Structure formats: C-alpha cells, structure tokens
C-alpha cells in the first residue's frame, strides 16, 4: 500500500521552507515531488525597477551566505555592460573575500549536515571554527554576514593594516582543523554508514539533470566556473578542482572538505601576489548603461551562479535574470530520492540526500494546512493568519 508523507514546509531537516512529498511503500520511497513555491520574492522584477546601484544592495540579499558571490556576479555583469574592468588589486581582493565566504559556507554546511545526521558536537566544532572565518570577513569588509564588499568598478575598501598577518594565522588554523575533521569523518563508522552508497547520482545523470558545483564534482565531473570560465583573475591563480568518483553523499562531504583546504591555498597565493595600485575605479553612483546584453557566471559556494542582463540604454536594467545554483540542483534530489532496481532509498536517508545538495531556499509567503480528519486541504495566506491571530484574543487576568 502506498502512502504520501509530506515533509515540510517547516521541518527540522529543512533550514528554509520547502515541501517534499514522498510516496512510500513501507519505509521505501518510490516517488518524490519538491515544491519551492514558499519563497518567491519577485527579485527579478524588483531589479527592473531600480537604478543599477540600488540593484547591488538587493542582489546581495538574494542569499545571505552566498552574498559575496551574488554581488560579485552583479558587479561583473554591470562592468561588462559599461565596458569597464576592475583594477588588478580589486580582482585579487575579490578572490580573497569570495574564497573566505566559500570556506565559511562549506564549514556551515558541514556542521549543519553532520548535525542532521545526529552529530551535535561536530556541529558545534564546525561552527566554532567558522566563527574565526567570520571574524576575518568582518576585519576585511566591515561586516560579518552581508559583506557589502564588491561594488561596481572594484571593492569598497582596501586591506586594513595588520589584517594580512591575522588572516594568515586564521588560514593556518583552518587548514589544521580541516585535516583533523577529515580524519574524524573517515574513522567514524556512523557517518560512513549514513553517507556511503546513499543518494547515488551517476555522472551521466548529473549532466542530464543540469547539476552544478560541488554536487556535480562529487559525481566525478571536473567542472568549475573558476577553471572553465575564469572571471576575476582566476586564470592567474593555481588551484585544483576537487572531484570524487563514488557519486554518493560521502563524496559530497569529501569534496567540500577538500575544497576548503583548496580555498586556503588560493587565499595564501592571492595574499603573496597581491598587486599594488587602486582597489576601485571611480564610477558615478547613477549612470546610464549602453544598450546591449551581458552575461556573467560565478562559482558560488553551492555551484554555478548565472546573471544575465539586458540593457535598453536606461539607468536601470530592462531585464535582469538570476539563476541560483540550488534551483539547478533541485531536480537531482527527486532523482536521488526515487528507488529503482537495486538502488533503495529509505525515509531515514532523506536528510542525508536533501542536505547533500546544500539547499538554500528563503522567505515564506503562505502556508498549506492539511486537515487529515476531514481529508481536505486549504491554502491559508499570511493575511488569513493575521486575521486568525487577531480573532483569538488572549484574556489575561
């Protein structure tokens, strides 16, 4: 007999609202469906209504964790439209902040992922180390989370005095910790049992599903925007693209861990070879972009980020399109959750599989209420909830 198990929109395994509908036979999942409609904020439309400089602030708020990648992609896009290029020092400073936020994102994910697998202490450990990275981001950019570092034509500030030594000390610390975590993960039987041969995505399927980022590299495909389409001086910085060929959740953990140490090396190289000179071009805040189209791609922590804009010669974009990596990776979740042949997926594997793509979904607009007894479903809007809450007055005496 088949049952439908809804997981979400609010559930401990989801960080953000997401609806998973699983069709199960006993414990075995036979079909799955994903609903992401809880998060649409209309940012693409909002970008059409704002001058370019205001769009920058909005774009940074598409995603809290990948904000450095989002703002970098936006700045590259607008610079391309204007036919300008950031000075060499700005390009290297952008790499430093981008890679720092990749370390912070990967550590955050590793902590959260192991937490969903039942490892509270590892969660605390990872997030404690991430805190050191946040301190560095604050030192360089002035902000912990939304860095607001990139701007059209360069970056907002230079490295403050003394920051380089502190940054190098932190990098040494992170490198040592990552080495330790890799040993822990490889010697902990529970982690291995819960991730190995779970959520398998074959390389062929990964390409067919349009998967990107660490998730794609964990399926053994060597693709990284930084390598294939270098955008901010990445062709001058040597780095390894980490791939793993077991194609399971274990591979996703390994790829992200190893990428973290790769980021450390990239930041060190950028600091060693930091060009001198200006860190930004002088571009007036309000300007008209020449007509045309431009496309920029950035390797965000979660995968390939695409910004595509069309200008009609005005002071705001005619159309601004943003494709975030999670949307590209979502389709593969459905594929990985479906049992077929020898490949069996159980309800207990859901957090491991869903977490494996590092989902990033945000902002809620409405709620689905299911009334099991009366077998009916109704959609409740935010306004209805406010009305309900006002109707029921709490009497205090």
């Amino acid at each position, binding site marked *: 007999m088949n049952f439908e198990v809804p997981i979400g929109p609010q559930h401990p395994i989801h960080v953000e609202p997401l609806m998973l509908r699983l069709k199960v036979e006993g414990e075995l999942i036979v079909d799955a469906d994903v609903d992401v409609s809880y998060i*649409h904020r209309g940012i693409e439309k909002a970008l059409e209504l704002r001058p370019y400089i205001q769009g920058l602030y909005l774009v940074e708020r598409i995603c809290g964790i990948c904000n450095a990648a989002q703002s970098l992609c936006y700045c590259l896009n607008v610079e391309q439209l204007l036919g300008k290029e950031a000075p060499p020092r700005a390009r290297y400073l952008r790499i430093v902040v981008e890679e720092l936020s990749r370390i912070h994102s990967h550590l955050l994910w590793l902590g959260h992922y192991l937490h969903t697998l039942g490892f509270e202490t590892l969660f605390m450990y990872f997030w404690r180390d991430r805190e050191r990275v946040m301190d560095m981001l604050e030192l360089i950019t002035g902000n912990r989370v939304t860095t607001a570092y990139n701007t059209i034509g360069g970056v907002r500030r230079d490295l403050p005095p003394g920051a380089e030594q502190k940054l190098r000390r932190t990098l040494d610390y992170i490198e040592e910790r990552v080495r330790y975590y890799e040993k822990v993960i490889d010697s902990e039987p529970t982690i291995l049992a819960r991730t190995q041969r779970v959520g398998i995505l074959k390389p062929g399927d990964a390409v067919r599903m349009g998967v990107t980022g660490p998730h794609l590299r964990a399926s053994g495909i060597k693709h990284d925007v930084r390598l294939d389409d270098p955008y901010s001086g990445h062709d001058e910085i040597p780095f390894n693209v980490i791939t793993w060929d077991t194609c399971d959740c274990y591979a996703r953990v390994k790829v992200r861990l190893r990428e973290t140490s790769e980021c450390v090396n990239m930041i060190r190289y950028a600091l060693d070879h930091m060009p001198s000179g200006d860190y930004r071009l002088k571009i007036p805040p309000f300007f008209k972009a020449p007509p045309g189209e431009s496309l920029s791609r950035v390797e965000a922590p979660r995968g390939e980020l*695409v910004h595509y804009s069309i200008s009609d010669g005005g002071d705001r974009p005619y159309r601004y*399109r943003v494709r975030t990596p999670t949307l590209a990776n979502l389709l593969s979740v459905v594929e990985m959750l479906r049992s077929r042949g020898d490949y069996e997926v159980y309800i207990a594997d859901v957090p491991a599989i869903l977490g494996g793509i590092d989902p990033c979904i945000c902002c809620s607009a409405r709620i689905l209420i299911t009334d099991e007894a009366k077998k009916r479903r109704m959609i409740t809007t935010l306004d209805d909830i406010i009305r309900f809450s006002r109707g029921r007055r709490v009497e205090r005496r």
Partner: protein
Amino acid sequence: MSEEGLLRKITERFGDKIIEAKVLGKRRVSILVSPDAYKDVVRYAAQDLGLEFLSCLSGVDRGDSLEVVVHLGYSMHVLIKTRVSKDDPAVDSITDILPAASLYEREIHDLLGIAFKGHPNLKRIFLPEDWPEGVYPLRKDYSPEHPKPLRGGEAV
C-alpha cells in the same frame, strides 16, 4: 572550438532559419533562431556540438514578442534565442532533449505565460496557487502594487 567556428557550424547547417548570430564576448555566443527551428538547433547544439550542459532558460518580454533564451555549455556559454508573438505564445518543450529544462520551463510558464508544447508537467512553480490567471509578473505591462508596510498586522 572558437566562438566564430561555432557560429559558422550552426549557420551553415540551419541557413535561413538563423535570424541573427553574433559573438557577445569571450566564450559568449548568441544565436536568434525562428521558432520552428528552435528545437532542432538546441538538439544539434546539445547532441552534436557537445554542449550537453543546460545552465538555464530565461524568458524576456521584448515588447511586442516574448523571447525564450536557452543557456548551454560548461566553458563556452551559448545563448539560443527564439521569439514568439504575445497572443497565445507557445514554444516546443526541450525537456525530452535536456531533462534539466523541466524546472526552468515551468518557471517561464509561471512568470511570463509561455506555453511549452510537450512538457510533461507544466504546473505552477513559484507563484502562489491563488494568483490570478492570466497575470504574468515578468511581463512589461505588469506593475507591482507599491508594497505596503505592515504594522501590527495591519497594512498602513
């Protein structure tokens, strides 16, 4: 393959079906094709030219017509565009060639109202289920109401 070489291959094969082909920059190529050849061009690019990775699909309101843009390729980024008229806009679905297109086609259908012929499951993806029929937020004739700030649960 160079940008020009790629353009030459596609224009030689499809001839007058290609309305416009240009190089946008390093590793960026744009091709505008007529709607009847759109699916064949995508198939040729994906299967014969090895651009099997679908980055995304974008929809654009071009004033009197609607445009679908297919973004293909890992290193080379090829934009294959086609335009359809605004009354009853419909384009062939490419989900059978590139399954990854499934979510993006639903997105464009949802926000711009283009029907994709042959899509297995063309339902809403982002907009709420009580969103009025026939209102497409990414079209130019739609202007969002000025958002009202909430105070104490009441719009002021």
